[in-house]
């Protein structure tokens, strides 16, 4: 029964509000994942945490202002505008602290985050005790709430989210350049400060539109987890952006659908947990950078090293001591079960020996470290070094007299 409800939710058949929430969350996730990617690549992920916490005093102040002018103080656009203003102020404060004082960015983040958040909590408490306007629901901005989500809210998220994605697409080149090599970008005439500002502005915008649904405490997760997850799947920044958008969208949609299956499940936290599940799955199973792939590479490397050692033993007419090595040689048709090498085995042994002496030289040479670190026992040297580098190595071997030990 539980699964059929989930299925209904996932296929958008669970009522008007659930549908709105699911679509809104998916769009929010796409915008957050794509925008957060550049923050992650620029290694400033935690800035988003300070931005989101700095929204809270804005919510309180906006409420007070609107209540003072006779409204009920809960007009969403007004509250978000206030949130954006203090978040912007927090961003400027951080910028000023890191540029004008000797504080490092992490210290500035900590200071801004805690002070702004503290101020916001004080404001909300005051609002509740003096009972102006109708403050019920303001605390929803902390952890998010979707129960009362309106059609206008979904439209707001859609429009703002689409704008954020558009800006990401427009600025992808300068943002990538600044994230990779700010010095070169500046030297090429890219205005690094303005690009950084645009990056932060994007994050601010996504934070504001996600405030109502996910809440300021958890919006960071939606900005950071999808890019980190996407990084497991690709080595290209343009693809990280797209995959992060997809993962963010999936997290939003699936999370919202799950939370719609029971009245007591909070949407924001469920969305974040969904993102986390995607992260764990990617960390374990992604090809290339995943943990499992790394373990399998390790096993393969072990086999290759045994094989290589066996071949080198053949080349030097030494006996093969390890049973596993001999097993591998026999299985590959390089030796007979009694340890006598086959014709193929002899030829491969000769090649292995030549490669090995090249690698030995490469290992001694300054600055081939990262090439050498990829050496897994059978990796042909021409895969990692350029032709002239190999020529240089061969020259050194010739100087030392002889090719193979």
């Amino acid at each position, binding site marked *: 029964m539980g699964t059929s409800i989930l299925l209904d939710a996932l296929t958008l058949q669970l009522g008007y509000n659930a549908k709105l929430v699911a679509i809104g969350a998916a769009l929010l996730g796409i915008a957050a994942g794509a925008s957060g990617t550049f923050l992650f690549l620029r290694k400033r992920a935690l800035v988003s945490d300070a931005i989101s916490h700095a929204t809270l005093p804005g919510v309180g102040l906006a409420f007070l202002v609107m209540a003072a002018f006779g409204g009920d103080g809960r007009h969403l656009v007004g509250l978000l505008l206030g949130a954006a203003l203090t978040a912007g102020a927090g961003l400027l404060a951080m910028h000023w602290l890191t540029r004008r004082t000797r504080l490092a960015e992490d210290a500035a983040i900590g200071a801004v985050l805690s002070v702004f958040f503290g101020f916001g909590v004080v404001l909300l408490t005051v609002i509740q005790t003096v009972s102006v306007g109708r403050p019920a629901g303001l605390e929803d901005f902390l952890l998010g709430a979707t129960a009362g989500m309106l059609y206008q809210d979904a439209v707001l998220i859609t429009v703002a989210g689409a704008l954020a994605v558009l800006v990401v697409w*427009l*600025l992808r080149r300068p943002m990538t350049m600044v994230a990779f090599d700010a010095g070169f970008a500046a*030297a090429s*005439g890219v205005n690094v400060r303005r690009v950084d500002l645009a990056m932060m502005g994007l994050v601010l915008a996504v934070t504001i539109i996600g405030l109502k649904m996910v809440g300021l405490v958890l919006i960071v997760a939606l900005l950071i987890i999808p890019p980190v997850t996407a990084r497991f799947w690709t080595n290209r920044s343009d693809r990280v952006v797209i995959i992060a958008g997809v993962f963010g969208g999936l997290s939003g949609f699936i999370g919202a659908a799950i939370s719609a299956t029971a009245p007591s499940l909070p949407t924001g936290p469920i969305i974040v947990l969904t993102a986390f599940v995607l992260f764990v799955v990617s960390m374990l199973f992604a090809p290339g950078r995943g943990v499992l792939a790394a373990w399998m590479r390790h096993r393969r490397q072990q086999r290759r090293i045994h094989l290589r050692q066996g071949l080198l033993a053949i080349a030097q007419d030494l006996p093969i001591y390890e049973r596993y090595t001999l097993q591998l040689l026999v299985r590959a048709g390089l030796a007979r079960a009694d340890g006598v090498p086959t014709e193929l085995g002899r030829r491969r042994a000769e090649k292995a020996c030549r490669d090995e002496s090249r690698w030995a030289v490469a290992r001694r040479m300054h600055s081939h470290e*990262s090439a050498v670190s990829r050496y897994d026992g059978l990796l042909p040297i021409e895969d990692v070094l*350029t032709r002239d580098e190999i020529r*240089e190595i061969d020259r050194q071997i010739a100087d030392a007299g002889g090719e193979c030990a």
Partner: protein
Amino acid sequence: MIRALKTAMGRAPIGDPLDTVSDKPLAVRGLTVSYGDKPAVFSLDMTVNDGSMTAIIGPNGAGKSTTLKAVLGIVPRLSGVVSVFGQPLAKSRPRIAYVPQRASVDWDFPTRVIDVVLMGLVRELGLLRPVRDRHRKHAFECLDRVGMRDFAERQIGQLSGGQQQRVFLARALAQGADLYLLDEPFAGVDAATERAIIDVLKSLRADGRTVVAVHHDLSTVRDYFDHVMIINVHKVAEGPVAEAFSEENLQRAYGGRLAANLMDQLQLGGH
């Protein structure tokens, strides 16, 4: 014209009037940069001639890299004027190529060799122009010149230090500039890479381009460069290697204590 140039640069030059050297690839007057209270570079004058190859040398913390960065506007200058081919930086940027220190970036960044080289074409590509075959072809040619064509599709994290340096040089070549500014291009590279880089730099000079490199290995200054600028926050000496690269000037820059060591180094590489 000259008046307009001076106005554009905002401030009257210190030392030689700038207009007497204003057509030089690089002319710097009174450059001062300060991190905090202590100046990293103090009132530096520098003139680089067309088609020359200049080494900027000096002890650690002498402000060599800072000089390059200030020339490029990467770090703010406290005072001083910079003119590149007779024009202020804003106008002459397309004529400058820059090779930052290899260690200044994270090599685990998700990008491929070819994408890094294409970053050198950012001015041509702008924000949205698509990367076309001719751009890729150009990038491949630049990789070819540094012997890295076969590595175009590699993730940059898989490269060795020397290969990383070659990719940075290829990116600078893609910029198609007339003035090349390089920050420690030979630091921590293998012998083959060092030779590949110096070959490229010398071919640039043969084409009439101008090269300025921060350099740390005194033993190769005579072989690689024709001009030298010795600094230690202040300028110590500037001129053709045969004149300025003297024991006396090195003593003044590096201090007497280190001098014996350095002289040994020079004996090894010298003539």
